[in-house]
């Protein structure tokens, strides 16, 4: 296992909201790593710290203590500008509440991270449209978020997270608002990105969706309390009949 295989490392990460008496400990000493080609699911009850883990892993909030290392960069050592660049180039976020920009069309929302990174909008539209096609929304490219259903907005958010081949995808309940067929579509896409060499963290309540991951970690009160790793060879079944 070479060092460059490691896309993300959380080292003793703790996160407290507020101070003193009313402080809430959302994460308490979390160690977690994600390698290339690895999809890690995070499960846990509401309030167990799943979204906090993603925001900290993605450098959106600095942890109260501990280190976050993305592709070998210690986030605490980066300037605000360097951090912004790393986030844009390496990280794709799918937020629990989609976070689309209402004044931009679906296509513009998906192109945005590329344009912020200096691509011309003309050049950015090609991969953006490809990503929309994968989530079966190519025909709604010019619609605004307000004209899309919740599930469609979620798919746009997913297209935005994977466009341009970002190496680490952090997805918070990306299948929450989707019916089971569309949910499966999203997982298939996430899985194929990861199999092609990206890494991902998938927060989900849905056991069937979590089962697509290589590893599942269980959070309780901000701590990882257990982990399930799929064995390479299934011991359960002898496999498909010829």
């Amino acid at each position, binding site marked *: 296992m070479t060092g460059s295989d490691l896309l993300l490392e959380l080292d003793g990460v703790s996160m407290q909201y507020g101070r003193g008496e009313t402080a809430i400990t959302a994460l308490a000493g979390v160690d977690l790593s994600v390698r290339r080609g690895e999809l890690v699911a995070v*499960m846990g*009850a509401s309030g167990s710290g799943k979204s906090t883990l993603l925001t900290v892993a993605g450098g959106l909030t600095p942890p109260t203590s501990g280190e976050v290392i993305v592709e070998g960069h210690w986030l605490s050592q980066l300037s605000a500008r360097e951090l912004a660049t790393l986030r844009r180039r390496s990280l794709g976020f799918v937020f629990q509440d989609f976070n689309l920009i209402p004044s931009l069309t679906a296509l513009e929302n998906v192109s945005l991270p590329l344009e912020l990174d200096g691509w011309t909008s003309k050049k950015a539209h090609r991969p953006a449209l490809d990503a929309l096609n994968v989530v079966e929304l190519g025909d709604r490219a010019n619609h605004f978020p307000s004209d899309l259903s919740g599930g469609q907005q979620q798919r746009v958010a997913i297209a935005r997270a994977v466009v341009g081949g970002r190496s680490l995808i952090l997805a918070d309940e990306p299948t929450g608002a989707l019916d089971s067929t569309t949910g499966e579509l999203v997982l298939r896409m996430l*899985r194929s990105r990861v199999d092609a060499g990206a890494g991902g963290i998938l927060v989900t*309540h849905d*056991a*069937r969706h*979590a*089962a*697509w*991951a290589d590893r*599942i970690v*269980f959070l*309780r009160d901000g701590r990882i*309390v*257990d*982990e*399930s*790793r*799929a*064995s390479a060879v*299934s*011991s*359960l*079944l*002898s*496999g*498909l*009949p010829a």
Partner: protein
Amino acid sequence: MSVRQSLLAILNQGPCYGYQLRAEFDRRTGSTWPLNVGQIYNTLDRLERDGLVQKADIDADGQNYVEITTAGRAEVAEWLGSPVVRTMATRDELAIKLAIAVTLPGVDIAQVIQVQRTQAMRTLQELTRTKNATADPESSEQLAWLLVIDLLIFAAEAEARWLDHSEHRLARARSAGLAEPLPLNTAVPKRGRPAKTVQASA
């Protein structure tokens, strides 16, 4: 029992010998519940005793063929036409374990649940991985195999959901100061005397 009826349904296609029946059962169920030859012969003995099959020819290789009877055919039709009733008679090991654990003082029930959840999720991961490695079914053997996998996936999912649900229920009850573990009841009914007597004297 389903092995008995499955073998009978296979024999309804034509006479078979023991090893052949085993192979037919396995390929039709994706080898998920492999049978040994002993089970096959035991089942055939009972089917013969009940008049549902009878001995047929012995072929050149010395294989003893068995064929279905008219009563056997009726039994197959009856089986296919009626629902499988899952009785409460088969004790559910996990439900019992959790029910007992909840009542025991000093047991970290959240941990008991977590250990089980990890196991359920690992099973679900393996099943999902196996299923995802499979293209759309081409033969009816593949289709049968996928049906079985799907059932196992839904069952593992149901177990995981039940565990989540139980954890919530328990957390709510405990935070309301309810559902404390049970110490041993010292007022035990003596030697099978009805509980009523004990209560009356208490």
